[in-house]
């Protein structure tokens, strides 16, 4: 009887293991792929970029904004608006996923971004404060591999219970070659596709894969924002002190 049980288990075991295989891609589970994508996006020790933001409405009217962006590690980010005049001097500081500050030169004041505001539009763009500020998806989402093609992994990201993001679901296409997400779909709580972000012109700069162009489309309003990196340099030795409220005020 015991012998029969052992034979039965031996026969069933490969079937059980085989059933598990489709859930695990060759690169591991969804969370593992997401972690690799996050590591690929935040690979440099620091990054300094001059960025052109083009805001285009549904009628094709466009506005251009120039910003400068510094990033240290995975969490810290400082953004300064250089033009046009109505936003010149505005600064945005991210110290962690939960700690973001905005400096408005007209008021000479630094304001902490409240959690309910983080999902609103960042300075008229189609990116929210969370989209711009959050550098680590694994803090807010768990991922499951939905599909695997020859070139890409397709992940479904679900917010963790503690997450403050307003999205109910994200679908992320991750390039197998470099683990840079090529496309992300953002769904709201009703399950409606709200926004689509596409990363284009990904190239190796200073040894790090960097998308040169990010396009965020708001499908509800027809508005879109194109973020183009004009110049990018990595690992220049940015100091921790630079990412402080003291420095944020100097944005003016």
């Amino acid at each position, binding site marked *: 009887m015991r012998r029969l049980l052992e034979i039965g288990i031996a026969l069933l075991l490969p079937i059980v293991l085989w059933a598990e295989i489709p859930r695990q891609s060759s690169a591991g589970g969804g969370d593992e792929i997401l972690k690799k994508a996050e590591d690929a996006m935040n690979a440099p020790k620091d990054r300094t970029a001059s960025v052109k933001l083009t805001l285009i409405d549904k009628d094709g009217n466009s506005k251009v904004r120039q910003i400068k962006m510094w990033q240290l590690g995975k969490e810290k980010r400082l953004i300064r608006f250089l033009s046009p005049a*109505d936003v010149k001097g505005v600064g945005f500081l991210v110290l962690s996923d939960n700690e973001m500050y905005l400096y408005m030169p007209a008021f000479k004041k630094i304001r902490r971004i409240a959690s309910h505001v983080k999902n609103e539009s960042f300075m008229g763009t189609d990116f929210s404060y969370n989209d711009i500020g959050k550098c680590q998806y694994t803090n807010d989402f768990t991922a499951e591999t939905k599909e695997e093609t020859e070139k890409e992994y397709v992940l479904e990201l679900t917010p963790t219970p503690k997450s403050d993001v307003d999205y109910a679901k994200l679908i992320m296409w991750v390039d197998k070659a470099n683990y840079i997400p090529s496309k992300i779909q953002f769904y709201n709580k009703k399950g409606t596709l709200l926004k689509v972000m596409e990363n284009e012109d990904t190239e190796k700069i200073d040894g790090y894969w960097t998308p040169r162009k990010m396009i965020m489309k708001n499908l509800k309003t027809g508005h879109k924002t194109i973020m183009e990196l004009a110049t990018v340099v990595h690992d220049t030795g940015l100091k921790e002190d630079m990412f402080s409220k003291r420095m944020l005020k100097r944005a003016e």
Partner: protein
Amino acid sequence: MVRILVSLYIIPILLGMSRSTIYCAPTSMGGVDISGNLKLDKRFLVTDSVRIADYPYHELDLKLKSNPSENLSLYTSLKLRLWDQNLASSSADLTEISSNNPYELSLWEAYAELYSFVFDKLDFRIGKQRIAWGTADKINPTDNLNPDDFSDPLNFGEKVPTEAANATYYLSDEYSLQRLYGFRHSSPSCCPGANFPY
């Protein structure tokens, strides 16, 4: 009383204002960054007796900024305010240029800021400056270091920069000690001009 307030303030604020703001593209000249904006307001007053008073108000704000070195920043803001309204009530007033061209040019802010001055954690700013305390807008009891500017009541909450020396020592990113010295014996608030129609 409520009705009077509504007539005098709410209606003009809600209905009697049309604004255009033109921003000039930031440019750099000889190491000086220049930016600014031109605000054109068409204001009018509608009272209970359906009297309409035109009150155009224009403002040109010009900002100049220079960073001669990494630790020194110079900043100047000039403001030209123009009340596009003829104040002459008799032929005698026509001899006064200011009656026909009521404008005001002011050096709104002008200061030098030294970063890491003497000590690494000390920033020092001297000159005519806006010193903002607290985070609330408009009604903010802690923001009381600069006097109120009521010269344009429709821009409620505006403060007049004052001449001061301002030293801030950063203990950490959360805590800092600030020492201020005002050069003027008194800095009164500004009130609306006699020609203000509201």
